């Protein structure tokens, strides 16, 4: 009996996982181009995919051939997914995808046997020899043979596929209990790994020490557009090198940051009309104290990419999202991300909190506060991207008062022959402590008014004159306490001397 399956994107029984998997299948078929597996005719349209086999091969044989052509290994024994359109030369990206898949879809060793450890050399932008990255090779993996799903193992008349099969962890990660579904669905869900970019997580703010890796599941709305967008973002001719061509681009602070990065890449100007997705769901795989054997799903978050303060994240992403390689005690190379600010902003936007919420965590210690100086350019760009009028008014008022305070410190340094830089540093540290120690809304508002009054020697500073009513309403509303505190700390680290403050 020949294989004949039609998948429709609008099938009411399809969840976000099915739709993403269908996107992965469509991308794979596109990647096959005219080199489709022998005896298989596959066709991907805007809203449906058709898989057919010739009469002379059985259903099982057809499924085997489809899986073989879709899930491959490179000569270096790295996972090779044609549907992801990764350039042959992007070895570091292939290692990132390989590692990501091993931490998520293929966690258990039995799903990806292999013992050898290989190293690849990472070359810098100037082609100079860089660090070495090691990975564990794979001899075979679960997707290649639909391992333990009953799809190929169960004996059936005419070598047909059984009516039902089992959904395993390699299809939908985080599986503990078995789930039965129609065989066509189980086959389809195998392609989820192709549509979902995986990221390695290095969280500092939310879920530190728990989150290890994440999967970004796109909510596919048009198969052809999605495929074109993926090819454009990931493919060899991609202009979006930031997303596709670097190992470090797959190392992020949190799942929300990963999802927003993917959304940004896929929504960039040249592929905006080709997007084909309406949002993403990020699934975090992490350590839990009660199960040391595997990474468990510890959080899922839905990201739309359409937030009022999205520009702040864009600025943080552009100027602060960078990673670097460090060496551990054994001498192995390990990737980290240098700033936790994009992680914080992305997590806040996705959870619909204020964008600056919990900023105080990032300046809790003196060392962290000092380290913020290295992120000043990005922080200034973030400040410029703020749309909320209350936030802008608070930050402007603080900056004006801080500028006047610094002018006084400058005069003092000149008169007494002191080091101006040191005076500023000490004052900044004092301000940080005073803001962090304010425990009630009244104390904080009182501190801010006193700080502004001291700076201007009692006169009202210009932002206060212009935005008096707005500032008064904001400061004396006890509900704004956290937001006010975080904004003041943000203002303290995002100051830059520009003409806007010279009023």
């Amino acid at each position, binding site marked *: 009996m020949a294989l004949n399956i039609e998948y429709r994107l609008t099938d009411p029984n399809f969840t*976000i996982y099915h739709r993403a998997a269908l996107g992965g299948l469509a991308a794979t078929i596109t990647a096959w181009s005219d080199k489709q597996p022998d005896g298989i005719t596959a066709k991907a349209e805007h809203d449906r995919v058709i898989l057919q086999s010739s009469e002379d091969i059985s259903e099982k044989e057809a499924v085997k051939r489809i899986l073989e052509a879709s899930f491959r290994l490179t000569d270096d024994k790295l996972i090779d997914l044609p549907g992801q359109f990764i350039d042959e030369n992007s070895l570091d990206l292939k290692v990132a995808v390989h590692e990501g898949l091993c931490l998520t879809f293929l966690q258990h060793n039995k799903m990806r046997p292999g013992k050898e450890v290989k190293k690849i050399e990472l070359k810098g932008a100037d082609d100079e020899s860089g660090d070495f990255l090691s990975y564990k090779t794979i001899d075979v993996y679960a997707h290649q043979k639909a391992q333990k799903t009953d799809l190929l193992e169960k004996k059936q008349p005419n070598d047909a596929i059984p009516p039902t099969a089992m*959904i395993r962890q390699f299809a939908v990660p985080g599986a*503990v*209990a078995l789930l039965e579904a129609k065989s066509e669905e189980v086959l389809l869900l195998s392609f989820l790994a192709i549509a979902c970019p995986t990221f390695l997580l290095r969280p500092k703010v939310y879920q530190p020490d728990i989150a290890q890796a994440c999967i970004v599941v796109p909510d596919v709305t048009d198969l052809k557009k999605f495929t074109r967008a993926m090819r454009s973002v990931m493919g060899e001719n991609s202009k979006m090198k930031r997303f596709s061509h670097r190992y470090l681009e797959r190392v992020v602070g949190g799942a929300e940051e990963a999802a927003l990065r993917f959304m940004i890449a896929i929504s960039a100007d040249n592929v905006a009309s080709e997007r084909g997705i309406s949002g993403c769901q990020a699934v975090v795989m992490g350590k839990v104290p*009660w199960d040391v054997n595997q990474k*468990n*799903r510890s*959080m899922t978050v839905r990201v739309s990419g359409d937030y009022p303060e999205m520009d702040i994240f864009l600025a943080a992403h552009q100027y602060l999202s960078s990673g670097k390689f460090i060496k551990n005690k054994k001498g192995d190379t390990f990737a980290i991300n240098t700033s936790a600010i994009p992680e914080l902003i992305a997590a806040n936007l996705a959870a619909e909190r204020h964008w600056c919420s919990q900023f105080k965590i990032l300046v809790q210690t003196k060392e962290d506060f000092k380290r913020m100086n290295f992120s000043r350019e990005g922080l200034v760009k973030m400040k410029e991207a703020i749309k909320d009028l209350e936030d802008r008014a608070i930050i402007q008022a603080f900056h004006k008062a801080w500028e006047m305070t610094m002018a006084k410190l400058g005069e003092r340094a000149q008169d007494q022959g002191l080091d101006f830089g040191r005076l500023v540093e000490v004052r900044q540290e004092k301000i940080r402590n005073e803001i962090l120690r304010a425990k009630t809304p009244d104390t904080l508002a009182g501190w801010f008014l006193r700080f502004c009054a001291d700076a201007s020697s009692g006169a009202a500073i210009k932002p206060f004159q212009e935005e008096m009513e707005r500032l008064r309403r904001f400061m004396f509303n006890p509900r704004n306490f956290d937001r006010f505190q975080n904004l003041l700390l943000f203002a303290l680290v995002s100051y830059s001397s520009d003409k806007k403050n010279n009023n």
Partner: protein
Amino acid sequence: MITLHIEVPYASFRKSYARSLAETYPFPPPATVYGMLLSLVGERFRANHSGVKLALAFARQPRISRTLRRMSGAKYGVSRTPDFIETLCGIDFLCWVDSSQETNGRTLEARLTEAIITPERVNRTGIVSLGLSDDAVDDISLISDLPDWSEKLCQWNGNFQGWHWLNPQNNGQIELPIWVDHVGAFHTRWRRYQFEESPLLIYSEPEEDKFTPIVDPRG
């Protein structure tokens, strides 16, 4: 057609594909609401009111909280280890029940009316819950005059702005089960929905396209 007002302080509707993290659907699935209505009238056989149609409108989008709990090993086939569980909080919705397509004897509409007006005539046990037995229902009331009731609600609650429809839509963002196969997943059926962001004061019966038919796929 009858209109019911249902309030549930918290409940968890575990997603079918949720494994080690018990994610919840963002709204009570029609399959679960139907199950709760059957429980209210003391019906033990799911297929007995197959063909009934339900329409749902919510006072607000329920908030999701995440807690650490132990899951039932017997129910989910997992070891009795703790795990993160998502819980929907503040579920407050209107449910329209239309039995015009039912063919098996007494309709669900009639039985629900009887159960609410004369509960002593109904033979049932246990508390009414929406989904799991811990997720008890706070209130189920029959709304006979919806415009009048909505007006009173506006007067009592200054923050109330209206109801948000949960519209069945082929390309909707939310997928909810409308029939659940409790043995495997072969007979589980889904439908996609879109949550209407802007609230509306509802004065009349819902249009046909707002209803979800609950049909037994086993025939």
